[in-house]
């Protein structure tokens, strides 16, 4: 935080929608926060350009009624979030106002609420000892937040080495109590509480090393885990036209993914979708811990009707909170729905500032902004040797469903795994409608990831996955041939190839997000079922006529799907399996 003796003030000289020009009487920094002073409120804004003594600021609220000459006070720091115990389970807006504490039905302009609870007492246990040498990000102690061990750290802004003079004893404290006293290199005493501030647009880099992702993050969604796994600490994105199931897929990820904490940035999307989370997550159980899903979730909601400028801030706020928890050695999954709305917010602002536009009127630096953001995800080794991770998955809403539009293109350069939702698959109700052929995961090319998969799932796993992909591709080719030449214009083998790929499609790729059992598949089960379908793939069958093929494989698929719908390795599951074996025997060559 840059400390200033004199607060810079200014006066409004111009207003275009939510872009306001301010004549400042002192120094102003880029991205500095300032407040427009109104009779009954203060409107938060951010400096986005400075020309001479004129600051161009974007206002995070409606600018209705603002006048030339209105007073503006500069805060001396960039947009910051408050980091401390009590972030978990909260519903924030894009600027970290606690939405539940806002009064009334409507979001009145200028209303601001505390992000954290200053009254609540937390059970503190010290970790650091007197005379320890510590640096920013080191753990001084810990409190329990919901169920999660929340580390109290040396604030990230502290530069240099410090010596611990004292740490509070075990006991109950509020977040504003002094938890430790540190001595800097000059012997000056500095008090540390449970709360610290950090500017959202600056990455928190208090870690030793950031290796390439080498573990997979289990999501329980077969078309992701089996076909194109996402690395823990990796990045992925889900583009898709409206109605292709982006939001259902994101909700499934948020419910099931093997992460300690889920942060959802609802960025410029439908309010009713966020309401669904507000309504369901406090009720739904986290299958891994038996606790309520809300206990591991934080929501940053800036729905499409909330101020556009705060939409941009919302994704940064979410990322900064993720980085804070990662520094505690936790596994975070960050979901943003949708990054296109954020890009559109950038476009609106760039347009008002009359910048020369890039493709589709987006700002020229769109690609750079998006890749900078994605690069904040990652798996890290902390200074104390522990590990933490942020896995980031964003959705993209391509205009007209066209994957060549600028936001999709820019994201493709930044994200390492790509889950393209296809209108065709959605139309034929093949959910999740991820296109198995267009989608990819670069992580499968990492030798360290392949080693991890071999060790943790099975030696043959990577080979099987490759076989699955080849079979799907071959199936698609066969189906194209059949469509061109007609059912009886091709050898029966073509039909067999096609239907073997259909078995894989129906049994491995398609998954019922609304069925209690099928919605989530453990890796063990995924492996079991993949081996099952590969066995079928490798079996030679006898058929005289193509019509037999179609009918026969429909029975095979039905049997395998019944298995998917029953509890893994239950009696019923094995019964279906036995019946399946009989069906296979019927036609085995």
């Amino acid at each position, binding site marked *: 935080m840059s400390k200033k003796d004199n607060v810079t003030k200014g006066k409004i000289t111009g*207003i275009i929608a939510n872009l306001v020009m301010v004549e400042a009487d002192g120094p102003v920094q880029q991205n500095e926060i300032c407040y427009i002073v109104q009779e009954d409120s203060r409107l938060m804004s951010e400096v986005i350009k400075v020309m001479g003594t004129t600051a161009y600021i974007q206002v995070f609220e409606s600018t*209705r*009624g603002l*006048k030339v000459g209105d007073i503006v006070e500069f805060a001396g720091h960039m947009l910051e979030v408050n980091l401390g115990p009590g972030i978990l389970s909260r519903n924030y807006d894009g600027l970290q106002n606690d939405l539940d504490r806002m009064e009334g039905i409507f979001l009145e302009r200028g209303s601001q609420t505390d992000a954290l609870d200053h009254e609540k007492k937390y059970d503190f246990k010290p970790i650091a000892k007197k005379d320890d040498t510590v640096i920013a990000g080191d753990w001084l102690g810990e409190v329990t937040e919901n169920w999660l061990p929340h580390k109290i750290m040396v604030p990230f802004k502290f530069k240099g080495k410090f010596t611990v003079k004292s740490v509070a004893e075990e006991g109950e404290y509020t977040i504003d109590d002094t938890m430790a006293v540190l001595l800097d290199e000059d012997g000056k005493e500095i008090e540390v509480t449970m709360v610290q501030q950090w500017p959202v647009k600056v990455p928190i880099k208090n870690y030793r090393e950031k290796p390439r992702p080498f573990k997979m993050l289990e999501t329980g969604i077969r078309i992701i885990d089996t076909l194109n796994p996402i690395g823990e600490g990796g990045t992925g994105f889900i583009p898709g036209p*409206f109605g292709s199931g982006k939001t259902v897929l994101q909700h499934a990820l948020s419910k099931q993914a093997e992460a300690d904490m889920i942060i959802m940035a609802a960025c410029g999307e439908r309010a009713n979708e966020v*309401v669904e989370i507000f309504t369901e997550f406090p009720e739904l159980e986290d299958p891994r811990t038996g606790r309520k899903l809300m206990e591991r979730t934080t929501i940053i909601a800036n729905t499409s009707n909330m101020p556009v400028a705060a939409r941009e801030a919302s994704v940064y706020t979410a990322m900064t909170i993720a980085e804070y928890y990662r520094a505690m050695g936790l596994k975070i999954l960050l979901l943003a729905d949708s990054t296109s709305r954020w890009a559109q917010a950038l476009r609106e602002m760039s*347009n008002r500032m009359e910048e020369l536009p890039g493709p*589709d009127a987006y700002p020229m630096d769109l690609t750079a902004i998006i890749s900078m953001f994605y690069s904040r995800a990652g798996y890290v080794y902390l200074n104390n040797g522990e590990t933490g991770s942020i896995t980031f998955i964003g959705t993209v809403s391509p205009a*007209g469903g066209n994957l060549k539009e600028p936001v999709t293109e820019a994201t493709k350069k930044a994200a390492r795994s790509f889950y393209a939702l296809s209108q065709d698959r959605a139309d034929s109700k093949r959910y999740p409608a991820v296109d198995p052929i267009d989608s990819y995961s670069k992580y499968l090319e990492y030798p360290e990831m392949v080693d991890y998969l071999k060790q943790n799932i099975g030696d043959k796993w990577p080979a099987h996955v490759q076989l699955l992909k080849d079979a799907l591709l071959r199936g698609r080719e066969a189906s194209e041939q059949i469509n061109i030449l007609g059912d009886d214009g091709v050898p029966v083998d073509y039909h067999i190839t096609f239907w073997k790929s259909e078995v894989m499609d129906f049994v491995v790729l398609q998954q019922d997000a609304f069925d209690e059992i099928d919605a989530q598949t453990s890796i063990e089960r995924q492996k079991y079922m993949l081996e099952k379908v590969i066995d079928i793939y490798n079996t030679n069958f006898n058929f005289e006529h193509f019509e037999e093929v179609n009918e026969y494989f429909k029975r095979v698929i039905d049997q395998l799907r019944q298995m998917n719908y029953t509890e893994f390795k239950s009696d019923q599951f094995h019964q279906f399996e036995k019946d399946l074996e009989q069906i296979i025997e019927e036609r085995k060559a």
Partner: protein
Amino acid sequence: METQAFQKIHTKINEITKATISLNASGVGNEEIALVNGRLAQVVKIIGNEVTLQVYGGTEGIPTDAEVIFFGRSANLKVGDELSGRFFNAYGEPIDGGPEVEGEEIEVGGPTVNPVRRLQPSEFIPTGIAGIDLNNALVTGQKIPFFADPDQPYNQVMSMVALRAQADKIILGGMGLTNDDYLYYKNVFDNAGALDRIISFVNTTEDPSVERLLVPDMCLSTAEHFAVEKNQKVLVLLTDMTLFADALSIVSNRMDQIPSKDSMPGSLYSDLARIYEKAVQFPEGGSITIVAVTTLSGGDITHAIPDNTGYITEGQLFLRHDTDVGKVIVDPFRSLSRLKQLVIGKKTREDHPQVMNAAIRLFADASNAKTKLENGFDLTEYDRRTLEFAKDYSEKLLAIDVNIEVDEMLDTAWRLFNKHFKRTEVSVKKDLVDKYWPNDSEE
């Protein structure tokens, strides 16, 4: 709007474009309204002491010495029970020859609802149209457009929805309605005697196009008043949102903004979302539901207007002319109500979801059979039965002139199943078939 004594009158305009004027003035607030030679205008830009106003009525004939009077406030509207049964223009002035409305003054285009104060929509709004109620049930707090080609009878459907929907208030927002369509609505509402709960804000093609930008805000501010203050179920009908978006592009063009896809302003998504997201279910029972019309050009849903709309709304409805029965139907394949799961089988009879899916599946089989027929292949006996079923289904359920209760729709569907299929062919859960399959003697 009366001029008041203390208001300063400006008479020197620096710049006039087709939609805006600029002049020197001080102490003016952003989005403040003003009169320019009697025409309503709103402040859209202030640079130093130069203020730019968007003149809703257009700037034709505005002289450089026009009288500009600022009101010192943003647009507002008088609301009260007297609004019912009345027709107003985009400014909220009566156009039905009736008196001015007295009532509480409210700000137009107020703040947004805190998302944590919303309730998940859960109340079913029957419209009597089976293509909607049976297959695409509407839920209070939902927003859904008809994607229709200009030649389709969407205004007739909208007027039917207005007359039949079980809502406390119906607010019609007409944007770029032809005078004929305006008179059609007026006539239909008058004759049905349903005027006591219908309020209309209408901009016709005879009015300046920029004026229609005001219509959605007028409708939705009124809707908010009744939903919040009186806890009423309000249904807002907006037609045609494509013409609204066209007006947006005209204004942004006049203000030298860089257009994005399809010459639309870059802010189109936010502009549309601001309107559609007013749809809400309040915890106290009031709700706002929006049914809109977005006309397509040549059925192209990738155009920026339907595309952005689709990302915002909770589904979309398509109309289609079914040549087999000669009637307009609600297309069961392309239409989708994203919120229907919240009510069907829960607020309606238990067999609703299964009957809905079974009927659509059989309709799809019929459409495959039709393709077979067109390609010169032989039809099976089952194919022929599906074709017969499809005709009945179109005529007795999907056609927009059907007006029955949901239970009757379900019973009709069962009767059609019984007429054309065996119990095992409809793939509905056995216990439901046992319970609802009609006795053959009844047929």
